[in-house]
């Protein structure tokens, strides 16, 4: 079957992109052991401190995000009739496509020295990192946990009411047993995201006391010119990520993000109604305020000056190129992997199918910055790495998008094959006719969503471009970071708003352009 072969070139490229940088890292670490005392680097106070802070900030961010998310998701579940519920839940999906560096700008607009709730210098360091991480992960955790509440059967609530259960008993006997299964998975996902967070820590932390492994790798390569130290840090980061991924695999799967507008049959009491409404409003303010403040700052900022600058449009061009190229590459690679995995799944080789899809999600375990560092040390002795900035940034971003493509497109592709393969065979529908009349109408919606997600994420990424970017190859997030670092906050606000709108515009154009209007009704 031809589908069996389409994954092989993609798997080979993925293997090369992961193994070659690993070999590069290990090679340098081997050399460094004899030449410049890598062993002593392992003992370094600085590296220990960075390691401790990485785990500490990720743990605190996770605890805060999950703790608040439990309150908010519970309030949402109990207030199914809340007037703006649908809109707010959509707002909670926004952090997925908002670039991290834009969020940082928003956080500065709200909590910075001239912000709405000024924290002054206290913003920079752990506080700012926690605020930004909770901004990203509270909505994600709410969207992951809310379906758990909705999975509790109506009869259980009715039984609870009949037995006269109070709030605490409902939590203990109905809600907690359902949540217990999903909580470790959601918690570990949030922990991993915070552990590998780069842009937030770089811009809001970054000082000697609040540096994570990822930021330290970047600083070692770009400022200290110390590849040996970068290698040790990258290997530490890789070990941590593998460990977290291994622990995650021991737990149940994540719940599906499928939010309905149904309301729980919980008897409404006026005090609870007030509390739940308050919690929802506070959460909405927390998530909405940074974006709103940033937009207000942008409108009050030097709009004409920034929008007429060549560097902005130059960077926008590069960002667009990175976004669209990464999305195209990711879709082609994802399609090839899924074509094979669905063929295997339909012939009952589920294990092999699962392994192929897992290989596509390798960036969950090997962070992009580690891959970037490996490529950096691998090619630096032979070529000018900065000449290769764009291809590398595109390639790594395409890899980062692959898990989204697999998760979004995979189920639709599998369902299409399982349902219609025999029917198409019996109707002699194959090749172009099958693509035109069956596959394209069914798959264009998830395809559009995948392309939109990958393009928006790649356009807003400040990971690999920070490592490889030069004044000639600056993307919008890098330009924004440079403005923030130079304390050109008014200009940064305009650039952040421009980047946000660009990402949303590209997202919308790809989602509706490719996805079209679905005619599929089941």
């Amino acid at each position, binding site marked *: 079957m031809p589908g069996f072969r389409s994954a092989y070139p993609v798997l080979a490229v993925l293997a090369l992109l992961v193994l070659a940088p690993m070999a590069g890292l290990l090679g340098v670490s081997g050399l460094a052991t004899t030449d410049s005392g890598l062993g002593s680097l392992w003992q370094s106070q600085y590296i220990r401190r960075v390691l401790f802070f990485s785990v500490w900030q990720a743990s605190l961010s996770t605890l805060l995000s999950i703790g608040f998310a439990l309150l908010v998701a519970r309030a949402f579940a109990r207030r199914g009739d809340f007037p703006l519920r649908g809109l707010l839940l959509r707002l909670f999906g926004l952090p997925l496509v908002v670039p991290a560096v834009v969020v940082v700008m928003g956080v500065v607009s709200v909590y910075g020295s001239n912000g709405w709730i000024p924290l002054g210098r206290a913003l920079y360091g752990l506080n700012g990192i926690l605020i930004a991480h909770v901004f990203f992960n509270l909505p994600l955790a709410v969207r992951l946990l809310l379906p758990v509440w909705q999975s509790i059967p109506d009869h259980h609530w009715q039984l609870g009411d009949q037995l006269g259960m109070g709030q605490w008993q409902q939590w203990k006997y109905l809600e907690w047993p359902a949540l217990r299964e999903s909580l470790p998975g959601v918690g570990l996902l949030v922990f991993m995201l915070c552990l590998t967070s780069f842009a937030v820590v770089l811009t809001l932390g970054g000082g000697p006391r609040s540096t994570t492994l990822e930021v330290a790798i970047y600083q070692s390569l770009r400022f200290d010119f110390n590849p040996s130290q970068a290698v040790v840090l990258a290997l530490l980061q890789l070990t941590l990520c593998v460990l977290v991924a291994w622990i995650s695999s021991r737990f149940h799967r994540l719940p599906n993000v499928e939010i309905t507008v149904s309301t729980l049959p919980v008897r409404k009491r006026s005090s609870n109604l007030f509390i739940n409404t308050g919690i929802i409003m506070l959460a909405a303010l927390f998530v909405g305020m940074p974006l709103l403040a940033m937009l207000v700052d942008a409108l009050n900022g030097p709009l004409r000056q920034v929008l007429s600058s060549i560097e902005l449009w130059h960077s926008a061009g590069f960002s667009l190129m990175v976004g669209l190229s990464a999305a195209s590459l990711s879709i082609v690679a994802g399609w090839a992997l899924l074509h094979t995995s669905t063929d295997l799944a339909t012939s009952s*080789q589920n294990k092999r199918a699962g392994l192929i899809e897992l290989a596509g999600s390798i960036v969950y375990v090997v962070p992009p910055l580690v891959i970037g560092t490996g490529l950096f040390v691998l090619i630096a002795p032979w070529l000018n790495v900065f000449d290769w900035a764009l291809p590398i940034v595109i390639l790594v971003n395409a890899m980062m998008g692959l898990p989204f493509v697999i998760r979004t497109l995979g189920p639709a592709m599998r369902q299409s094959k399982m349902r219609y393969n*025999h*029917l198409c*065979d*019996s109707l002699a529908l194959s090749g172009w006719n099958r693509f035109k009349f069956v596959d394209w109408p069914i798959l264009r919606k998830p395809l559009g969503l995948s392309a939109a997600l990958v393009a928006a994420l790649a356009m807003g990424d400040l990971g690999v471009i920070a490592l490889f970017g030069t004044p000639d190859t600056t993307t919008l997030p890098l330009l924004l970071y440079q403005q923030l670092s130079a304390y050109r906050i008014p200009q940064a606000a305009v650039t952040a708003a421009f980047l946000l709108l660009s990402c949303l515009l590209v997202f919308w154009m790809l989602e509706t352009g490719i996805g079209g209007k*679905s*005619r599929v009704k089941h």
Partner: protein
Amino acid sequence: MLSIERLAFCYPRGKKKQTDSMLFDLQAKPGEVLSLIGPSGSGKSTLLGLIAGFHQPTSGIIQVAGREIQSLEPAERPVTIVFQEHNLFPHLDVFTNVALGVNPSLKLDAQQHAGINQTLDDLGLGDFGKSMPAELSGGQRQRVAIARALIRKHQILLLDEPFAALGPALRQEMIELLKAIVIEQQMIALLVSHQPSDALLASENTAFISKGRVISLLPTEQLLTESPLAEVNDYLGKS
């Protein structure tokens, strides 16, 4: 005439089925609706899959009007199949779903257009050509699938529990419709069903399949009331 001789099949390793090794012998004549009944996992749907070409037999012969078809591709066989569900593409309207059975590239001439409309009319679907599948009832959707099967003018019609989701009155109506079409067009229909009452209504003869073999082929009433076989009586809940 449909003739199946020593048709052997084995599921590949890893695909867990109750019956791993199967061997079928069966005959049916034009104008006949032959029902296939038996326990779940006994091989009824697998037999239809072998005739349709979805599975490759390890040995044996399938003949239709004297022509061996077991090595042909699914689309080359004089066979059309109606499944229990997912017979229609949800994003295409009724007319297009039927038209795909005439020409997969949908390049139709005026005569083909008229033929499709006529078939839809014959099945009481004349007003639904522009409707989407989601707008139809379960019975109407199965009528569309049968319309497509008819317009393909293939000699063998395979029906894999097509009426399972319908209520008793609609089932009866659909079975009567099926019988009339099969007799009128001198087709051979194999109807897989879990309901002995469907077999009684649809077929003069019924085959009982157990553990990958046709263990009894008798007049339906006789099979359901007088069979001495323990497997049949177990299935009917008589033991």
